[in-house]
């Protein structure tokens, strides 16, 4: 276990060094993140100049949801998505062979090879947005809600991560998986809106079948006191999903045949 932690941090270090080489890109990480996050906030603000509530969510409650999503997103996108793109390429070129030949868990190696250091920026932006939203809302939140909120956020990240693993495993079956990025963008779009806007059937689907609801909706709604005890499910669904994603990965990666030479 120690070895895995060491390798993870070493990989993180190398990625940092690597990304700093491309000074142009590295310096622009914060502005880029701001572009992506502020565009959402902007849309929210414009929308709410024309309407007071969206299915029971006020303007800054909506912004809180966005901020929550940004935090969760920073935890997994930076670590998982670049590797997904690489995975697809490595399967195509046969370079995945090198990962498989190592005496260490392949899934771990694949998904920690690249780590986008910009996650620090993204995380900070998310926290700031949540803070601003809370300031506007002027809620009195009981102390016990905070640690649970943080746990739910970690859960949300793990939840989405499991989905990434499952879809990533599909890379073994189909030749091109460059739509994976688009799939996650779509997932993200679902997560950035309060689930109350979806009809009941869709909502159930998104909570229990493809558990996007636990990514950002549940943590935010929990904090705002909008859901009953649904948040408890988060701690059941996530481990289940993680286990499932591991099974899927093991199952599908066995069909990797490598590129012919």
């Amino acid at each position, binding site marked *: 276990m120690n*070895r895995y932690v060491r*390798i993870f941090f070493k990989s993180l270090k190398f990625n940092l060094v690597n990304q700093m080489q491309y000074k142009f890109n590295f310096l622009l990480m914060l502005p880029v993140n701001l572009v992506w996050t502020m565009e959402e906030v902007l849309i929210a603000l414009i929308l709410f100049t024309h309407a007071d509530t969206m299915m029971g969510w006020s303007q800054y409650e909506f912004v809180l949801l966005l901020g929550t999503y940004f935090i969760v997103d920073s935890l997994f996108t930076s670590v998982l998505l670049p590797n997904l793109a690489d995975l697809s390429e490595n399967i195509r070129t046969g*370079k995945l062979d090198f990962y498989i*030949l*190592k*005496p260490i868990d392949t899934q771990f190696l694949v998904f920690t090879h690249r780590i986008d250091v910009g996650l620090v920026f993204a995380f900070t932006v998310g926290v700031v947005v949540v803070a601003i939203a809370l300031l506007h809302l002027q809620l009195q939140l009981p102390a016990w809600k905070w640690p649970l909120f943080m746990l739910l956020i970690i859960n949300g990240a793990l939840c989405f991560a499991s989905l990434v693993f499952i879809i990533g495993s599909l890379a073994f079956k189909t030749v091109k998986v460059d739509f994976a990025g688009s799939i996650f963008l779509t997932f993200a779009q679902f997560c950035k809106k309060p689930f109350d806007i979806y009809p009941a059937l869709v909502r159930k689907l998104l909570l229990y079948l493809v558990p996007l609801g636990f990514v950002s909706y549940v943590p935010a709604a929990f904090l705002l006191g909008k859901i009953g005890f649904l948040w408890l499910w988060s701690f059941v669904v996530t481990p289940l999903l993680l286990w499932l994603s591991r099974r899927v990965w093991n199952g599908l990666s066995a069909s990797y*045949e490598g590129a*012919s030479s």
Partner: protein
Amino acid sequence: METFGRFGVQSEEGVKVDIRVDGLCKTYRVHRKNPGLRESVKSLFRREYHDIEAVKDVTLSFRTGEIIGFIGPNGSGKSTTMKMIAGLLHPTSGRIMVGPYVPSERKKAFLKNLGFVMGQKGQLWWDLPALDSYDLLIDIYECDRKRTMAYVHELAERLQIEDCLRQPVRMLSLGQRMKAELIGAILHKPGVLLLDEPTIGLDIYSARAIRNIIREEAAERDMTIILSSHILDDIQELCRRVVIIHHGRLVYNDLLENCYQKYLFQKRIRVKFAREVGMDELLHPDRVTEFRPYEVCWEVDRDQVSRISYEIMQRFAIEDITITEIPLGTVIERITRGERGGRDEQVS
């Protein structure tokens, strides 16, 4: 010291192993698509599959410390066989044992003892110096850091790329990169080393250097090495034993020198004449393989070589005469095609 029966002996550096392959088969399923736009649309809804037998019933065994050459045309199944020995592919049927391990189970101890060099692909991080990649490899393979780094630097010196290790890999020339990759593949001192086209595209100096290191390290560590290459210099310089795979089948499995002994009893005599020579003037016209006005090439039996060369030199004014073996490439081609040369043919 642990022992693994007759399959190998554990030592301080890497496990020395025997490799056994029994009745190995590998079949692929591919879908076939016919050309044209219409067919593309059809294939969206229904696909045709057919089976390809990449490897058919291959049986081999290698002893510890052997360097074996795998030869065969592209698509012959030799890469597939190598990958199955490495555990990258699961055999459709048959057994492989590398030491006490079954490769496809990918046990940690097996993987730690395995090295693989792939000539057309690299594992080193593109934008970072090779030393950083080695650093990570040391952690992954759980090697002793100090000793391994000392070994790395020693290898780098022998390969003359000591300075290159600190530059990002993308800035190295192909030769330097391959040398760095080689170091990366053997720094954990594996007992089994597989090489797939390690010198492809390299200049002669780099290729030589790489071959030397392989040879030296193999001798030093008693590594079992499987080398697959189209570059016959690799095979000739490194391998004592050679395996020829053609259409997925094992066609030849013997010492390299026996290729010549068993299959060809012939040598080539190439003569450059001082004046133009006509076809009708020639001796032994049935033995001529190449004919040009000033240059002719005969293929004659080994025991006839001195007599026939003498006759030619007596009869004609010659500028130059060369007597050579039939090139290895031609030998292999003939073996693959199932031709048999030599005495038996002569008699009939």
